[in-house]
């Protein structure tokens, strides 16, 4: 089995024996991507649904885009300056037109960020809460004034973060959620335009002939095919009927089906995501740190990586994903702090007063998880076998998503829950929501554990508002130390984000978040 070597920062890896070489770009051709279902909308600002943003981010663009080291770089904003107090961001915009010929101006930026992204964009909310006002001194300049500094401000102005710029002349005065441009007829500035949508089958986008990046895009068309079944997508790729599967639509278990296939290449890249075990710290005895530490000591995460995740990806050794290298402290290593030791775990539980009953059981854990992710079922079984060794029993509650969400996030009716949280590219956007007190809400994918630690709250707040990355990093490293002791959430596995494509696909495919840079992708013509 091929192993994936990961460095801290995301890098390009081609795992097929025949590596696809970087020839010079060729014009023309159609790239076919897979989705599981029709997107409800094609507006990337009002949802975080993958189909919506996948399609929308080809038609629309944002002020910044995210490069391969996950740094924001110029897009619709060709340059910017930031005031010394990190409160005033001044953007110079490029000159281009919307797909319908109307000029793109600063008015569109102000309209979008205030009326769409701030109101409906889940990932833009954190940035929106810091914005004091947006002004447009002229058509090519936008000034965003913050009330308090916000570290990931530039990152939040990308398509990924619900901040793609929409045309004011199309949306102003209408209901954004039901506007035809949201539902099916988008008008953007991006490299591709909507050509045809056959519901249930395909969405076809064609090249924007007036695209402002000269000479781009290389592709004539990008087509999305709706293939609901995970295995069917892989089979379609192997049969050459589609060219690319985004990591979201490809599971680690299928890796063996494509490993060694000379016509398929893999690029491991994407917004880092992590598999976690979240504890309900409202319930005894899971409110005791010693008990959580004991339970952590009784699980072998290296084994879980092998048995559940095909030995792909990597074990998570701190609260912050190591792929966000600037924020992660490599000296904090949970595997070294709590080496796998069932006997020690037993002693720790004894110390905590959890002695075995007449049936040999000390404790029962009600484990809730989404049954749609098949790795959850296997992980639950592996955890069960490990915890059984120390006299801890597990009650499996594998539920469909609609039933899992209220159990875990509204009713808080669980002892532990298996979840996968995206970091959203920055700890302030995707990691803090697991640990801070203000994120304890009856809503999905926030602080479900109920963990509340003022020191942690302060550090996350400091890290979010500092503008210098060095300052932010220092705060994150400190918070990682605290969380490594408290363990309200067990970091288990840094998800292997496997994007797979035909070897004919070249250039910057799956380059960072998976939503940008498709203008710089080309297809090699078939060999005769």
């Amino acid at each position, binding site marked *: 089995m091929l192993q994936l070597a990961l460095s801290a920062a995301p890098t390009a890896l081609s795992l097929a024996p025949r590596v696809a070489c970087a020839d010079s770009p060729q014009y023309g051709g*159609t790239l*076919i991507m897979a989705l599981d*279902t*029709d997107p*409800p*909308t094609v507006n990337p600002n*009002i*949802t*975080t*649904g*993958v189909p919506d943003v996948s399609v929308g981010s080809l038609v629309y663009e944002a002020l910044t885009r995210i490069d391969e080291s996950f740094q924001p770089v110029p897009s619709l904003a060709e340059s910017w300056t930031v005031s010394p107090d990190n409160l005033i961001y001044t953007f110079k915009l490029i000159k281009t037109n919307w797909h319908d010929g109307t000029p793109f101006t600063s008015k569109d930026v102000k309209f979008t960020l205030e009326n769409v992204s701030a*109101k*409906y*964009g*889940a*990932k833009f*909310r954190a940035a929106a809460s810091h914005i004091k006002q947006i002004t447009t001194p002229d058509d090519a300049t936008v000034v965003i004034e913050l009330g308090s500094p916000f570290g990931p401000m530039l990152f939040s102005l990308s398509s990924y973060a619900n901040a793609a710029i929409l045309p004011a002349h199309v949306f102003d005065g209408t209901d954004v*959620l*039901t506007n035809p441009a949201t*539902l*099916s007829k988008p008008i953007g500035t991006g490299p591709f335009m909507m050509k045809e949508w056959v*519901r*249930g*089958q*395909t969405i076809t986008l064609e090249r924007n002939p007036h695209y402002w990046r000269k000479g781009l895009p290389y592709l004539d068309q990008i*087509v999305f*095919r*709706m*293939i*609901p*079944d995970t*295995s*069917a997508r892989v*089979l*379609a790729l*192997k*049969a050459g*009927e589609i060219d690319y599967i985004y990591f979201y639509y490809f599971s680690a278990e299928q890796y063996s089906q494509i490993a060694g296939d000379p016509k398929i290449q893999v690029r491991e890249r994407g917004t880092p995501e992590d598999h976690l075990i979240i504890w309900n710290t409202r319930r005894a005895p899971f409110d005791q740190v010693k008990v959580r530490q004991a339970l952590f000591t009784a699980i072998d995460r290296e084994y879980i990586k092998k048995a559940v995740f095909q030995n792909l990806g990597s074990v998570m050794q701190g609260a912050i994903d190591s792929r966000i290298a600037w924020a992660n402290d490599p000296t904090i290593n949970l595997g070294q702090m709590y080496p796998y030791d069932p006997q020690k775990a037993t002693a720790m539980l004894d110390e905590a007063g959890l002695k075995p009953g007449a049936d040999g059981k000390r404790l029962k854990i009600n484990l809730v998880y989404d049954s749609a992710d098949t790795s959850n079922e296997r992980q639950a079984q592996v955890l069960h076998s490990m915890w059984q060794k120390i006299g801890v029993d597990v009650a499996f509650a594998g539920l*469909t*998503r*609609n*039933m899992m*969400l*209220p159990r875990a996030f509204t009713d808080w009716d669980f002892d532990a829950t298996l979840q*996968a*949280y*995206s970091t*959203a590219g920055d700890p302030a956007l995707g990691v803090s*929501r697991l640990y801070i007190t203000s994120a304890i*809400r009856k*809503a*999905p*994918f*926030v602080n479900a554990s109920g963990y509340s630690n003022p020191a942690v709250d302060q550090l996350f707040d400091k890290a979010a508002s500092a503008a210098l990355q060095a300052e932010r990093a220092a705060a994150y490293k400190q918070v990682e130390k605290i969380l490594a002791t408290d363990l309200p959430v067990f970091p288990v596995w840094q998800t292997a984000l496997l994007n797979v494509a035909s070897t004919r696909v070249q250039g910057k495919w799956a380059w960072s978040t998976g939503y940008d840079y498709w203008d710089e992708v080309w297809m090699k013509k078939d060999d005769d």
Partner: protein
Amino acid sequence: MTRYIVGRMFWGLVMVLGLVMVDFVITHLLPGDPIDALVGNYPAPAAYIERVRHDFGLDQSLPMQLGHFLVNLAQGNFGFSFVNRQPVLPLILDRAGITLILMLPSLILASLIGVALAVAATGQTGRIMDSVLTGVSLIGHSIPVFWLAQILIVVFAIKLQWLPAQGMRSIRTHDPLLDLLRHLVLPAFCITIYYIAVVARVARASMLEILHQDFILTARAKGISRRAVLWRHVLRNAAIPVITVVGYNFGTSLTGAILTETVFAWPGLGGLFINSIANRDYPVLSGIFLLASIAVVMANIITDLLYAVADPRIRMTPARA
């Protein structure tokens, strides 16, 4: 006869309405709601969720929602799909049509082959053909269709590259009809093999029963050939159970291909059905239940009428003393 048909249709309509109301209540009582699916894996703004909930009428009580649904239905309005953001009726009719493109030829072929197999098995080479039929029936009935589908894809689409792996149409094609037929082969095979098994078993059992009747012995004694006896006398008299099962198959055809459609990404009603359940898309589910119920009721009525055609001794009016 006309009164019979009208009466059947009236009660059929009553039953369909009752079914739809029961389905409506059951799906609304399921835990979870459509908003969860729309929101994604990141906490959405509360204002957005409230807005969507209100737009789709989910903030009303169940009886009110049912009331609105029935009033709209009476006006021919099947509602609006949460997930697909379009009116329900054109959506499900379109997808139903695509399912029928797959199911109708498959069912017709399966019925014809099934009956032919049964006739052959009951004929001269009884013993060999009988084993073939039993074997085919067993295999056809027992193979999990999603497994068979994947094996077919691996062999014919990936290894041999003779046929497409999924979907209904290629992105680029010079001959749309041929392209459609090529896409139809593998999914239709999966469906057909199952229904051949079903029809053949029932036809064989029914024919064997007739074969041992006295009037068949009389016909043979009169010198009519074995073949003529089979096709003209045995088959016709054995038709009733076969009509029943074939009618049933056609009636349930709209939702009979869910697994096949999923594996082959055939964009029919089955895929829409599964997706709508997962996303709690109530209007689409109600629409599908309605359409499927109507199909079953109509198929039952037609089947009953066909009995009278097949066997003139059957009358549609109450027998007089």
